[in-house]
């Protein structure tokens, strides 16, 4: 006899046996499903969290490394600020060293991507960012060559270049070859970056006289915050001084809402998992009712019994949690290597992250898994332990046990509170109230379900055919048990329905928006990626004079830094005018036409309006050009393309203020009879082909929709997981119920019903329950989708959308759920009858 078996036999392992082996042996499928559900929920939470924190960690590290030992980073928009500011800051007595810099994303030739290039003074870097200096001293003087660039190890690997090679980039529509002079020290900067001398960068990237970043190291003893405030007062509008920590936090701010969204989806998966534990535990406990009553009569106390039952839930939670953490870790690892650190949403496009594990976060998700499982087991355990032993020993007591679930008033209260909370504003820029509101409504739906199910079942007429009649009679007689199955279905269906409605609303709104934003036939731009591509006035004239081009409209895209902790807002200077703006921009309200003595109009996107608290009619000072001027907010428009906000203005006005005649994008209308292909050919013949991108309206639409789908890919995946867990719940409750009713099946067989007829009866029950659940699920899902669209989405991403109900997919979904329920019910009935059900009748005596 092995030591284990001996220990087992002598009873030392009895608690283990009672907690794990016993319930497991009794119903392995149910236990495995419950563990799997918890594991899946925990795994999703862990994976989403790990990937996000790895990306953020990498983002912060990159910002930190770039700032080196700087105490403050002064930053301007892409167009930068006058370099004279550098001389002024250098002379401040508190400044020990200042490093002037240009930081730009530069489009790469022959590659649909860009590389971040920082041009700075390597001599100043010795004091401010010593780690970013090449190890070999001679490289600093090599860097004085106008075409020299140093690459980080990550960049050389990514580009497949080595010292001595050429790096080809686009500036304007020209292709430029830089010479890779060397590689930065390993570990100095983990992301892709190129380093140039500031003079070369200004010249080669066509930014003479401009800087967009200055890193400051302060004399020891300087009060950082006081100096930062004083400095901010002397900086031009649109130029901000921030600590490197704030710099690093920008990544966190940018993705906060998106991350919370994913976390919530993971928590919903966990929640459905907990519900699964709850429903299966309720039914299992009902089945073991006589067993517990016996335990009570032989002296086991209520407390001990309840503790034992809760411990069973905890064991499921521990197993599921541990499995989930491992699974989540593996998922995160694969997501990072396959999907990338941004989970497809485009926030950290060029960040390469390695998995960054946080033990406390892993522990938290593990604890959540255990907690949910324990909570799922606690209510039924308490209920089972409370019952007086004598009545529980009798057959048919199951329904009695559920009578005490007086939940209607609590449910109505939860729903009411949820609806009220939906009106609350964002907390700390996050739609926390919205999420709580959804949770309360779902909880309320579960709580009102017993009474609601009872009321509905009461009104059902009894059909004449035996199996259906017995099915309905059975449901009418045990409405509370039925309610548990219905509630499981309601939860999964409502989640699924709400997501479906939201995504479909978003996609439909996006399509309508693209239609509106892309009125022309062809779109031409200088490079899709990067910040140094543009079209000169001469090239613009050439484009406009291309045969077959009837009309060309040009758009200049710049950015403005309106707050240090936020990424810059896009400035679009195009053909918009006060009178005709409705034709070009999808305004969300009426446009305001400024009077002659009022500042000129700008139109801000919903995102920018939310971030900077702007309303139509407001006046706002914007740092466009070197002297900030006042503008009138003439309207708010919907913009799905620029997540950090956009401001549109008339290009004639922009040129007048800034003198900048370059453009980035061109919308082209073709003359009648000119084919798209002919026009594209003619345009390519007139411009440097390598550096421009021409796309038809259809292609632009397709690209945009593809980006949309990629952004939502991870959302879809999480949603499907939540729904699957929900369906597990349904099937578990059906099979548990079927098992519990073996005696009943035996009686039915005794009185002459065939197995087929019992199957039909079960199918009927399943169909009824599923239909009931789906109907309520659709209703609850619709309410939740309203909150998702108008509260959660609006507060997370700051853009509005029209509600669009996808009738056909919803109908299909409903049909699948009912069919799945019927199939599960019949299958579990078959499985229950596989044993000798006739003998099961005797179990009672």
């Amino acid at each position, binding site marked *: 006899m092995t030591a284990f078996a001996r220990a087992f036999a002598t009873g030392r392992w009895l608690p283990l046996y009672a907690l794990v082996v016993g319930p497991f042996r009794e119903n392995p499928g149910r236990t495995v499903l419950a563990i799997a559900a918890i594991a899946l929920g925990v795994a999703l939470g862990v994976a989403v969290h790990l990937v996000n924190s790895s990306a953020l960690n990498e983002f912060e590290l990159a910002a930190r490394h770039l700032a080196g030992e700087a105490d403050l980073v002064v930053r301007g928009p892409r167009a930068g600020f006058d*370099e*004279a500011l*550098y*001389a002024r800051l*250098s*002379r401040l007595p508190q400044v020990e060293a200042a490093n*002037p810099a240009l930081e730009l994303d530069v489009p790469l030739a022959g590659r649909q991507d860009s590389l971040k290039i920082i041009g700075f*003074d390597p*001599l*100043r870097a*010795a004091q401010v960012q*010593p780690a970013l200096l090449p190890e070999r*001293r*001679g490289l*600093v*003087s090599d860097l*004085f*060559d*106008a075409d020299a660039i140093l690459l980080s190890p990550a960049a050389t690997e990514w580009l497949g270049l080595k010292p001595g090679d050429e790096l080809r980039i686009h500036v304007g529509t020209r292709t430029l070859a830089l010479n890779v002079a060397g590689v930065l020290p390993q570990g100095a900067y983990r992301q892709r970056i190129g380093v140039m*001398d*500031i*003079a*070369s960068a*200004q*010249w080669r990237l066509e930014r*003479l*006289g401009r800087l967009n970043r200055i890193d400051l190291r302060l004399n*020891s003893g300087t009060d950082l915050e006081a100096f930062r405030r004083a400095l901010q007062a002397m900086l031009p509008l649109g130029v901000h001084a921030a600590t490197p920590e704030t710099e690093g936090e920008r990544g966190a701010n940018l993705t906060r809402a998106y991350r919370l969204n994913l976390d919530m989806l993971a928590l919903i998966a966990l929640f459905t998992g907990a519900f699964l534990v709850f429903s299966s535990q309720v039914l299992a406990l009902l089945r073991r009712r006589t067993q517990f009553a016996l335990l009570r009569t032989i002296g086991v106390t209520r407390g001990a019994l309840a503790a034992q039952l809760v411990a069973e839930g905890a064991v499921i939670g521990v197993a599921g949690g541990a499995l989930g953490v491992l699974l989540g870790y593996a998922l995160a690892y694969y997501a990072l290597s396959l999907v990338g650190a941004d989970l497809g949403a485009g926030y950290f496009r060029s960040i390469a992250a390695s998995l960054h594990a946080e033990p406390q976060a892993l522990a938290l998700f593990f604890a959540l898994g255990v907690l949910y499982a324990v909570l799922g087991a606690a209510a039924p355990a308490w209920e089972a332990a409370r019952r007086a032993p004598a009545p529980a020993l009798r057959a048919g007591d199951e329904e009695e046990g559920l009578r005490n679930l007086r939940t209607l008033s609590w449910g109505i209260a939860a729903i009411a509170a949820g609806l009220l909370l939906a009106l609350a504003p964002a907390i700390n820029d996050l739609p926390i109230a919205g999420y709580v509101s959804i949770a309360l409504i779902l909880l309320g739906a579960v709580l009102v379900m017993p009474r609601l199910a009872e009321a509905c079942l009461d009104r059902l007429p009894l059909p004449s055919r035996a199996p259906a009649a017995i099915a309905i009679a059975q449901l009418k007689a045990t409405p509370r048990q039925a309610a548990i199955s219905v509630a499981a279905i309601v939860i999964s269906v409502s989640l699924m329905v709400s997501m479906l409605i939201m995504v479909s609303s978003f996609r439909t709104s996006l399509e309508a928006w693209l239609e509106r934003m892309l009125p022309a036939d062809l779109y031409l731009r200088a490079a899709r990626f990067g910040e140094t591509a543009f079209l000169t006035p001469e090239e613009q004239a050439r484009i406009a004079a291309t045969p077959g081009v009837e009309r060309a409209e040009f758009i200049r895209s710049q950015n403005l830094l309106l707050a240090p902790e936020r990424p810059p807002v896009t400035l679009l200077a195009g053909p918009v005018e006060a009178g005709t703006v409705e034709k070009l921009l999808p305004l969300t309200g009426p446009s305001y036409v400024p009077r002659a003595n009022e500042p000129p109009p700008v139109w801000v996107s919903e995102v920018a309006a939310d971030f900077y608290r702007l309303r139509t009619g407001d006046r706002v000072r914007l740092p466009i050009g070197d002297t900030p001027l006042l503008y009138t907010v003439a309207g708010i428009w919907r913009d799905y393309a620029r997540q950090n906000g956009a401001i549109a203005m008339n290009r004639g006005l922009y040129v007048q203020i800034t003198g900048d005649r370059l453009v980035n994008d061109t919308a082209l209308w073709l003359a009648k009879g000119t084919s798209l292909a002919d026009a594209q050919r003619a345009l390519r013949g007139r411009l440097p082909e390598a550096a421009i991108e021409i796309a038809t309206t259809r292609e632009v639409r397709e690209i945009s929709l593809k980006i949309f789908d990629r952004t939502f890919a991870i959302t879809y995946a999480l949603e499907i997981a939540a729904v699957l867990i929900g369906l597990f719940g349904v099937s578990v409750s059906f099979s548990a119920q079927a098992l519990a009713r073996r005696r009943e099946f035996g009686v039915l067989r005794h009185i002459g019903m065939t197995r087929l007829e019992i199957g039909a009866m079960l199918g009927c029950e399943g169909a009824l329950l599923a239909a009931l659940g789906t109907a309520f699920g659709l209703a609850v899902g619709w309410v939740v989708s309203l909150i998702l669209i108008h509260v959660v989405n609006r507060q997370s991403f700051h853009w509005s959308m029209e509600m669009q109900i996808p009738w056909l997919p919803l109908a299909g979904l409903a049909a699948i759920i009912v069919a799945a329920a019927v199939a599960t019910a019949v299958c579990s009935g078959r499985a229950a009858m596989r044993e000798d059900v006739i003998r099961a009748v005797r179990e009672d005596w």
Partner: protein
Amino acid sequence: MVPGYRLRFPHDEGSHPDFRLEWWYVTGWLNEASKPLGFQITFFRARPELNHDNPSAFTPRQIMIAHAALSDPFRGRLIHAQRAARQGFGLAGADRGRTGAWIYDWRLEQAGDSYHARITGRQLSMELGFAVTQPPLNQGQEGYSRKGPAPEHASYYYSLPHLKVSGTIARDGAPKAVTGSAWLDHEWSSSYMAEQAVGWDWIGINLADGGALMAFRMRDQQGGSFWAGGALRHPDGRLKVFLPDEVRFVPRREWRSARTGTTYPVSFLVRAGDREFAIEPLFDDQEHDTRASTGTIYWEGAVRALRDGKAVGLGYLELTGYWRRVEL
């Protein structure tokens, strides 16, 4: 570089930006009677060879580099600071027509008959005035100082010995008044080092009798001298310029730096013409790590000149090219 150019003062005390390399080098002894200290303040101007004409205001047409170091025997090694910056925006540069070199708030400038230097930093700050007491000493042939057998390897070079120093020095705290005597070298060139040169040894000594001695030798890969030079100005103003074979540096003692593993001959017997001086350092570890600015490590320290065991002068010894070949 051509012989026969006649140095003009104060014009040639200013910058010569057409030459590739230029330096103003002040070394001296302070508080000699009580607690002696050595100090060095140097401003370099270098013109990188650019293969383009970049219109950017940041184009590094001239690079300014400055070193400052204090030799305190109680400390046992140098307290030093360095800066490097490109000329431009008025933040760093060198004036023409008179001495004036600066990098941010560090500066060395001429005002009438005296000079003023200012060095600021976390560990070391110096504010020193230098009063001229003797006329410039033109080195080599009337200021044309050859550094090798080929005539193009040379510099224009004059010295100002016996500068009277007064000012303050602050080390990690309150400034303390100091006085002493210093030596200023100003040298500019476009081709300083011959191909075979790896570095040089140099001394500049203010002799106690009012005389001034400068001697140097250029070393090759094997450590031997392939060129030498120097001059002795007597207290009465008579100048003796030495031919290459009249100057000899004989190492007497070596010191090895544990930090860099470099071995320097910190004590010499220097023969110049018919005179011979023993050169002994104030202390051994006066190694100067300037990798962050000039990219080199050298030894630059306060020394005493002894004759028959008796101190007859105070000055500085410079040992370059012992770590790696000097790249100018």
